[in-house]
């Protein structure tokens, strides 16, 4: 397939479906969105990820039309949407609380938006049936929202917001009210539905796992700004800041002074009396510049002997072991007091585990395992 179809954000010619241009939104003295620019493309599944109060919900409400930007422009398919009221936008929203109409049946909830468009009765019936089928709710059509389960309500909310075939579907913490198992199943369902309908989805979530699972691109937000917007794997493997590295998954941060070595390699002086760590970086650092090495626990190998070939090896002792079933995370304390997490897959039974508390161990990793970050 053409690369620009899979990753339109890499194509400078591609026209975005949504464009935020220097958008600021303040509520009194509080700035919820701070001079933010962002492009979202057609058929994307875009996730806004961040802690509560980072401005992600405000962005969504501006797209839906419930808030107007204080300054800047939001374009939908090239048109400034500021003067368009929410009831005339080709945008639908799935609310965090689902906001199902309690006095209407599931069928009437889904038909609600279509009736407002004065859709002919026959087409309307067909459309509602199609939505019920898509979300596997056929046998609940006549029930009221309080007569079905939380997971079913979530699907009704999705069906209702998809019924009008919007250009853009906004999902505000759509899976927040579901328990973990149901949430995981629903994530895949959401992805299937997004693929089938070809609708552009923008999802707001504070759950990084959810964002990574469903989204084609993830924007990590903090204090009304987008810190990094990229594909899940790049957000995870090459975060652009300690904030992003720390927000997504587990990470070890080692602070030190960088010194250029051979080629793309840098030597990181991180503590007295220890050899410098070797790390490759595509970004350049000046000699002596303070920087951070971010390295994921699963990329750190734990062993009893010092590995011969390893670019980096440090010794420490096991402080804690977190047994997660499929994985074990070892917390290893280095001589300077720094605790490094190392993760191993439990391919063998736990009784045959090689290390236990207080054992002296070696941690090692390659020069390309981590990322050097300036801040």
């Amino acid at each position, binding site marked *: 397939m053409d690369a620009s179809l899979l990753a339109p954000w890499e194509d400078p010619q591609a026209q975005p479906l949504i464009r935020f241009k220097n958008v600021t939104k303040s509520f009194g003295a509080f700035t919820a969105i701070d001079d933010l620019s962002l492009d979202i493309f057609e058929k994307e599944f875009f996730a806004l990820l961040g802690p509560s109060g980072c401005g992600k919900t405000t962005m969504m409400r501006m797209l*839906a*039309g*419930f808030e107007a930007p204080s300054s800047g422009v939001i374009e939908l398919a090239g048109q400034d949407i500021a003067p368009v*009221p*929410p*009831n*005339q936008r080709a*945008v*639908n*929203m799935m*609310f*965090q*609380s689902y*906001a199902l*109409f*309690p*006095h209407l049946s599931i069928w009437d909830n889904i038909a*609600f*938006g279509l009736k*407002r*468009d004065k859709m002919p009765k026959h087409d309307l019936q067909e459309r509602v049936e199609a939505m019920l089928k898509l979300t596997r709710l056929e046998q609940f059509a006549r029930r009221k929202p*309080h007569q079905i389960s939380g997971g079913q309500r979530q699907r009704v909310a999705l069906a*209702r*917001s998809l019924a*009008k075939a919007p250009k853009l579907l906004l999902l505000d913490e759509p899976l927040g009210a579901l328990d973990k198992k149901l949430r995981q199943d629903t994530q895949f369902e959401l992805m299937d539905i997004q693929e089938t309908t070809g609708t552009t989805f923008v999802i707001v979530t504070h759950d990084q796992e959810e964002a990574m699972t469903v989204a084609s691109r993830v924007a990590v937000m903090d204090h009304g700004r987008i810190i990094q917007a990229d594909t899940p794997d790049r957000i995870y493997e090459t975060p652009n800041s300690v904030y992003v590295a720390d927000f997504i998954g587990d990470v070890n941060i080692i602070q030190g002074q960088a010194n250029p070595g051979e080629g793309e390699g840098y030597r990181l002086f991180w503590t007295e009396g220890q050899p410098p760590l070797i790390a490759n970086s595509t970004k350049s650092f000046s000699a002596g510049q303070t920087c951070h090495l971010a390295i994921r626990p699963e990329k750190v190998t734990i062993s009893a002997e010092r590995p011969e070939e390893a670019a980096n090896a440090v010794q420490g002792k096991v402080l804690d072991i977190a047994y997660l079933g499929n994985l074990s995370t070892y917390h290893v304390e280095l001589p300077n007091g720094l605790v490094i997490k190392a993760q191993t897959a439990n391919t063998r039974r736990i009784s045959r585990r090689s290390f236990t508390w207080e054992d002296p161990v070696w941690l090692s990793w390659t020069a390309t395992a981590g990322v050097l970050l300036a801040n």
Partner: protein
Amino acid sequence: MAVLDRHRGRVVGELMRRFFLIAIPYAWLLVLFLIPFVIVLKISLSDTELAIPPYTPTLDLSAGWAGIREFFAGLDLENFVWLTEDDLYWKAYLSSLWIATISTLLTLLLGYPIAYAMARSPEQWRATLMMLVILPFWTSFLIRVYAWMGILSQEGFLNQLLLWIGIIDSPLTILNTNSAVYIGIVYTYLPFMILPIYAALDRLDGSLIEAAEDLGCSRLMAFWLVTMPLSRPGVIAGSFLVFIPALGEFVIPSLLGGSGTLMIGKVLWEEFFSNRDWPVASAVAVVLLLILVIPIVLFQRNQQKQQEAEQ
């Protein structure tokens, strides 16, 4: 054996406890409603007499079985037949129903916007607004109705104000007309309309309105399709809370109404105290109660349905 006894003792104790819990409301109902009602019903089946008490027969238990038989033989439906023969009564019933219905509608028209504004007001104001709605209850109802006489009379505050502004040339006659009765009922029962509607609107999730707008409704449409149906239980509850007492209202029509104001509460009062015809007055009361049973049952059903919907 001792263990079994103790167990049995606990079961008996539990049964006793339950019995008392249920017995209290039933005892309340028996003493304060059922017994007085039976007495009124009995009087309504009696004949009037110049005596103390002013009706006959009275139960004479000292005469034994014959006395009881004589007592029951003296009861008849004569008074109820009388209610159908004199057109005063059914006219008064109809007029009461009419006035109560119109007053309820007026109270609803006035109360709904107030409740809506209260529910939409900033969180920190709501307690104060609620207080203002309830505040009139702190003064005696009778005093407030008398105050309205001062406001509505020929030389009252309202006429003075209108004359001063220049809207009217000569004072309006409001007091002692049906209009004054409507004003009095709407004023008195407005809080009973506002509070249940406010409770329903307050519970309404704001995101429902946003969802309606998101799906293509204008503000007005969203109000009509979402807010109105969801506040209906409150509207129904409020309407019954106004309609039921307004139907039997006696103080307001006798103080604010005129000689042309015909309400069954007033008729009842006159039968009792002016005519001293207790049996006919009791018959009027029994029929009034029967008329009220219908809306009360409907009201209860509404409340029950609402509770079920919330579960």
